[in-house]
């Protein structure tokens, strides 16, 4: 079928359009270009044609949603099922039972099975929403098998004994979140309000969940249902959230160890640690005391930098060479400095405290007083900001440390983490760099509070929430699943 040009005008138009489309052979193309060079009207035609063609770029493009893929796959599953039925019907009854029939059935059934799996995957949000509480709290639910553990923990520790970095407000917020996530009606909205980082962390948990066996998934669902339905659910939820917070500060190896203990032994272990922590001798500062101490700290910073050089917490942990890592740590120097200048600084620091705390401080033995001073200095900003004991270091310090002190592999690993976890780990590295390898969170090192030494662990890198080394590694996240 061909449509020869009806007249010269049509022929000229076709040549021009084909020229614009790059569809002319070289000889004809050259001819058109010659004509264009000498014919202003033709050039005008060409430009008009091109303008109109370019205007089509404003037409909107279409993006289909999950529903489209979902329903299309459903249709395809239906088609595969029909094919299977048709083929089996076409076989004589005897042969249906024969090898060929079985093979055919197996092939078609495999296709159907695969498609069914695709169907589930096609709408991962549906699965995410259905299992959201278990996914969100997977790190905790995988730590115990039944309510017996939570009940015993609650019975022994009760509401008052827990030593936690969670403030009352933060705990209330956590409880609210737990209730929100537990309520089916709120889940979708809750997920949509997550920021990029939390969404990423949720994705990691989701992938951990889908990597579990169906039996384990079912167990976790039942466990959550039991917590929510328990007569003392509010107590259990609170205990679980406090336990979760406490657990998240443990190194993975310690979590592993705890998880493998029989329930009674584990509860005993946790309770013992908690009681030790509750009885620690350290004096926790009020926000006002912290504020005053901050001012003191500024003066102290300037003084120490003048006398010790820009090292340690006040100047950042950067060192000119690695030899310094093997020399006396910054804390050691700080302790020496404070000891040497005790009479100069101690009265000023004590002025920052309330009378009650001054008396408590005075009651400490000198060695503990010295440790307490260092601890206040290290923690004041962090406690004030409610961000845990390692928040004394500024964001700038951390960024500088990241740039200067971490190697490419560490950078890569840190950047792959959710932001809060990355910051936590970076902070740990920063302090380890400053204090040596013995330093651990919450006092694994020489200046940490003794009661929480075990808790902090020697190399604790934060909690298990986003760590997978105590679970089998999750599959790589599928971005499109969210």
């Amino acid at each position: 079928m061909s449509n020869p040009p009806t007249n010269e005008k049509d022929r000229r138009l076709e040549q021009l359009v084909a020229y614009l489309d790059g569809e002319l052979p070289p000889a004809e193309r050259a001819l058109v270009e010659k004509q264009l060079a000498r014919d202003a009207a033709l050039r005008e035609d060409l430009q008009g044609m091109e303008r109109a063609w370019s205007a089509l770029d404003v037409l909107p493009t279409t993006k289909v949603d999950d529903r489209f893929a979902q329903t299309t796959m459903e249709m395809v599953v239906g088609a595969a099922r029909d094919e299977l039925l048709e083929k089996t019907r076409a076989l004589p009854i005897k042969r249906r039972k024969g090898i060929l029939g079985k093979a055919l059935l197996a092939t078609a059934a495999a296709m159907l099975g695969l498609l069914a799996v695709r169907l589930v995957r096609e709408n991962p949000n549906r699965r995410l929403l259905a299992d959201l509480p278990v996914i969100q709290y997977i790190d905790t639910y995988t730590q115990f098998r039944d309510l017996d553990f939570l009940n015993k923990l609650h019975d022994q520790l009760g509401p008052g004994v827990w030593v936690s970095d969670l403030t009352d407000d933060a705990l209330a917020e956590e409880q609210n979140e737990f209730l929100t996530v537990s309520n089916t009606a709120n889940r979708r909205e809750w997920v949509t309000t997550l920021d990029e980082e939390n969404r990423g962390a949720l994705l990691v948990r989701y992938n951990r969940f889908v990597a579990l066996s169906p039996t384990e998934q079912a167990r976790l669902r039942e466990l959550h249902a039991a917590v929510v339905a328990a007569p003392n659910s509010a107590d259990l939820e609170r205990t679980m959230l406090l336990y979760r917070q406490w657990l998240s500060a443990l190194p993975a190896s310690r979590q592993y160890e705890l998880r493998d203990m029989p329930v009674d032994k584990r509860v005993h272990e946790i309770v013992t640690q908690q009681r030790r922590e509750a009885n620690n001798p350290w004096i926790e500062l009020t926000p006002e005391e912290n504020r005053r101490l901050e001012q003191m700290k500024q003066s102290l910073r300037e003084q120490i930098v003048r006398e010790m050089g820009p090292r340690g917490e006040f100047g950042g942990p950067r060192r000119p060479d690695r030899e310094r890592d093997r020399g006396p740590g910054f804390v050691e120097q700080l302790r020496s400095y404070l000891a040497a200048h005790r009479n100069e600084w101690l009265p000023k620091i004590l002025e920052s405290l309330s009378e009650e705390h001054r008396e408590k401080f005075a009651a400490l033995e000198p060695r503990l007083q010295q440790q307490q001073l260092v601890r206040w200095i290290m923690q004041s900003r962090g406690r004030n900001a409610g961000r845990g004991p390692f928040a004394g270091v500024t964001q700038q310090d951390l960024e500088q440390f990241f740039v200067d002190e971490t190697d490419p592999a560490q950078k890569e690993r840190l950047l792959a983490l959710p932001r809060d976890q990355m910051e936590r780990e970076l902070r740990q590295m920063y302090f380890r760099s400053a204090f040596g390898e013995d330093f651990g969170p919450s006092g694994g090192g020489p200046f940490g509070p003794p009661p929480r030494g075990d808790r902090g662990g020697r190399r604790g890198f934060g909690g298990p929430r986003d760590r997978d080394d105590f679970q089998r590694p999750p599959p790589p996240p599928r971005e499109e699943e969210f």
Partner: protein
Amino acid sequence: MAISDTTALRYTSEDPDVRLMLRVQQDDAGAFEELMLRYQDRVVSLMTHLVGKRDLAEDLAQDIFLRIYRSRKRYVPGSKFSTWLYTIAHNVASNSRRSLSRRREVNLVGKESGEYEGNPIDHAALAASGLMPTRQLDKAELASVVQLAIGALNERQRMAVLLNKFEHLGYEEIAEVMQLTPQAVKSLLSRARANLREVLEPYLAQGTNVPLPGSGEGLGEGNPNSVTS
């Protein structure tokens, strides 16, 4: 027409989508899913521009993917996968139009632009002139005018324009999809472009500074096959 082994081999080695389709042929559901995800937006876009209604376009697009799945055992790689897919899309769109016409429920773009008699291009130009701005057009307004212009093309012109402009198919590929000769496609596209110009030119002359996506001053860079003067 039988497809030679050499041709099949060439397309298999050159086109990754052909290789995916050959996996679909072996009942690989994952490959089908991947093909669908690759093409679903493009197919729905094409059908939307063709039929003018998003929900109908999605239904037709699903029909296209279903046909691809059902045809998998008969598939022979005689062209690029996209060419084969758009051939199916063309057939589905044509069948749909015929079916809708029979039921007197035609809702294609041309019809939606209003009841009219006579030359649709004249009608579109007239309708468009009623929207003629006395100020610079914004993108949404221009899109309405362009949709009007596209809707005024006949079905074959519209299909040829959409395949050429948005799917970047050459004349030979369009000819294969629409079962025409390349010369017929050349004529079809030249008339389509003249028609588009007739409707759009007054707007573009009026609002020469209309910002068009991907074009420095708004004009001239949209089509990779085009030659700027």
